[in-house]
């Protein structure tokens, strides 16, 4: 009888079992006897994840025998993207801000949702889509199909420390002339007027640049810029917006702002060393650790250009790109995925999420549930002026997500302008060059976007 090579056999068995174990761990949505496993993956960031787990619990309650496996991670796209490649993505996912949403859409990896949105909401006898504010799905739509459910809207404005302002008798300026007078007073008081996240030039585009373009050049010219039209960025009125921004940077931005990141610059306002800082409605939560005494942080809209013929009550508003909920085409449980999303965006869960995160959600009127604490009141001061907005600009959900190379060109050249190494005309020309290149590139998905 041939002697069996015991050593080789042992090694092969060990290797075989280890691979079986690995595949077993990697399998998602697998169905074992009588048990359905439904998988959810979500970005974990400033909004926490308790609301994801609560929605999962509610879904399990409604389906005895169902097990919902929730995976959350600050870099969830690194886990989820290989699963898409393997053809085995989670059943429903919010894949984070570095996930290639539009690449996945163009390759048929994400399910269109408009048919489901036109069915009844889970807790009301109205179409599901009617529980969202108007315009929620503008940026999520391509060729008539809606591809994601946004959850957290971001509002923008100037944030300020009311205690410091009250001490000096300052009030929010309505026009830019009033603002310049106020800034001169701030300089005399030894306070840098405008703090800025200098290391991240994209903060110059929300709210400043896009609102300046809308207010000085009008809605159509801003749409032309977002839609990659020829000569859109080099239009004289658009250049005027850049010129105005440069004037602010050169004369009123805090000394040293170029070397500050977002936390450092925003803290300058919290401790009273700067007058205002432009940021989104995540500002209060993000600055939780350096909150000054009392209930003192408020937001205001940017001042207006009273001589401009265009609407001035236009503001940036978009949805946090880290938490855009999608249903993969390869989901094993499509109906459950839709039900999960309906639960997530129901009135009950919207209230729960707003109260727990201190941020409104995309449920219509959710701001009413903002907690009555210093964070809630701060955020409420930002959402208040949006009620009378003529329209809103979703810069981050459009330009940033659709055309990252335009975004990169804008950031690079704005940084040059900040340091005084480029003029507004040069910045606009550089961005237009990239826009023209992308417009001719057949590999880039082209969107047609309207602000209203």
């Amino acid at each position, binding site marked *: 009888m041939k002697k069996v090579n015991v050593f080789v056999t042992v*090694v092969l068995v060990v290797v075989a079992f280890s691979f079986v174990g690995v595949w077993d761990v990697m399998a998602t949505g697998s169905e074992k006897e009588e048990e359905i496993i439904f998988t959810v993956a979500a970005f974990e960031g400033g909004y926490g994840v308790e609301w994801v787990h609560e929605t999962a619990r509610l879904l399990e309650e409604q389906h005895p025998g169902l097990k919902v496996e929730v995976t959350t991670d600050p870099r969830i796209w690194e886990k989820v993207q290989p699963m898409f490649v393997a053809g085995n993505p989670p059943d429903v996912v919010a894949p984070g801000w570095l996930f290639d949403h539009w*690449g996945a859409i163009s390759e048929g990896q994400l399910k269109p949702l408009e048919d489901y949105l036109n069915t009844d909401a889970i807790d009301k006898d109205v179409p599901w889509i009617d529980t969202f504010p108007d315009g929620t799905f503008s940026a999520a739509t391509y060729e008539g199909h809606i591809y994601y459910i946004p959850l957290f809207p971001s509002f923008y404005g100037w944030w300020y420390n009311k205690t410091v302002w009250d001490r000096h008798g300052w009030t929010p300026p309505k026009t830019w002339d009033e603002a310049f007078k106020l800034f001169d007073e701030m300089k005399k008081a030894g306070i840098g007027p405008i703090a800025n996240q200098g290391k991240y*030039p994209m903060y110059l585009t929300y709210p400043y640049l896009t609102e300046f373009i809308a207010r000085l050049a009008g809605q159509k010219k801003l749409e032309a810029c977002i839609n990659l039209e020829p000569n859109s960025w080099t239009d004289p009125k658009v250049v005027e917006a850049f010129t105005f921004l440069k004037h602010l940077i050169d004369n009123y931005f805090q000394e040293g702002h170029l070397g500050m990141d977002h936390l450092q610059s925003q803290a300058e306002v919290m401790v009273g060393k700067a007058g205002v800082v432009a940021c989104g409605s995540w500002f209060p939560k993000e600055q939780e650790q350096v909150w000054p005494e009392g209930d003192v942080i408020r937001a205001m809209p940017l001042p207006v250009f009273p001589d401009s013929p265009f609407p001035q009550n236009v503001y940036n508003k978009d949805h946090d790109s880290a938490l855009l909920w999608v249903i993969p085409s390869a989901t094993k449980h499509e109906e459950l995925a839709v039900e999960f999303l309906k639960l997530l965006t129901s009135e009950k869960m919207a209230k729960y999420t707003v109260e727990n995160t201190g941020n409104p959600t995309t449920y219509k009127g959710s701001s009413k549930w903002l907690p009555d604490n210093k964070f809630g009141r701060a955020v409420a001061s930002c959402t208040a002026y949006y009620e009378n907005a003529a329209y809103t600009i979703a810069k981050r959900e459009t330009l940033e997500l659709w055309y990252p190379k335009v975004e990169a060109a804008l950031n690079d050249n704005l940084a040059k302008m900040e340091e005084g190494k480029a003029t507004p005309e040069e910045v606009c020309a550089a961005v237009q060059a990239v826009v023209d290149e992308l417009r001719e590139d057949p590999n880039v998905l082209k969107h047609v976007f309207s602000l209203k």
Partner: protein
Amino acid sequence: MNLLGTIGFSAGMQSKQQQRRVLKKTRSPIRVVVFFLAPALIVYLAFVAYPVVKIFRLCLFRWRGITRGTQEFIGFGNFVKLIHDPVFWRAFVNNVVLFLFVVVVSVCVALFFAYIIARRIKGSMFYRATWLFPNMLGDVIVASIWLFIYHPTIGMLNYFLSLIGIDIGATPWLGQSSTALIAVTIPMIWKFAGLYIILFLAAIQEIPQSFLDAARIDGATRWQEFFHVILPLIRPTIAVAIVFLMWNSFSVIFTYVKLLTEGGPYRSTEVLPTYIYQVGFKYHEFGYGSAISVATFIFIFALAALVLRMLMERLMRGEKGF
């Protein structure tokens, strides 16, 4: 008895059973080595070698990295794009400049303090204790510490400069293109200096005392002793250190740039690793990102080969110090 002796002895045996027993004895050590190497080798092949092979393949395709089967073969199209990409060349030049700066500063600082410690000059115990401390910290922690040191208004650097009469106001070291690249490199040099001090210290301590005594007897000053005796004798160690510094400059630097400047202002601190990451994960061009990775690999491989070849040539020629 050694292996050859065992084989020779076995040649003289008559019984097949005895021959088999001897052969089994000679195969056992190899079998044991393979047994212990196998797990590490499998992990290395699966998680290092295989992805590298895939990258060499992927660089010939256009692919967004979402769907299997959508890779479009474009031959050397990504490399043609690379040649015309100004951001790539900016990152390449930044990385080479950074590498040269890191090598010069790290080697000089490490040699200086290694010499002080080896010669037991006053303060050497203090340097010995403190220089190793940063090396124990993670890269992220080091970068975070220096983020605060560089803060324009409350940072230690501007404050200390003002104390010694250099009042430069709220200089944004990380936010202006003239200083950002050097500013990003200093934390990495600070962290790894201790490691190279130990490396050079060990090399200096290996030098036979008779060499140094002979130099002293011949009237050599400390400078002459350092430049004409110690330095030539530790040249192989310096070559090894340069290869390690190459790894720092083209790989580890990613963490520092990502945390301190994100490649800004306007690409003045963009380096090859951060650009590869951006091309892959922000622009979703995995094929092009792979091409940049391959180009970087070829460059580093050539550079390392050049440094090591110079070392080997000297070894083969039996030059002094080898």
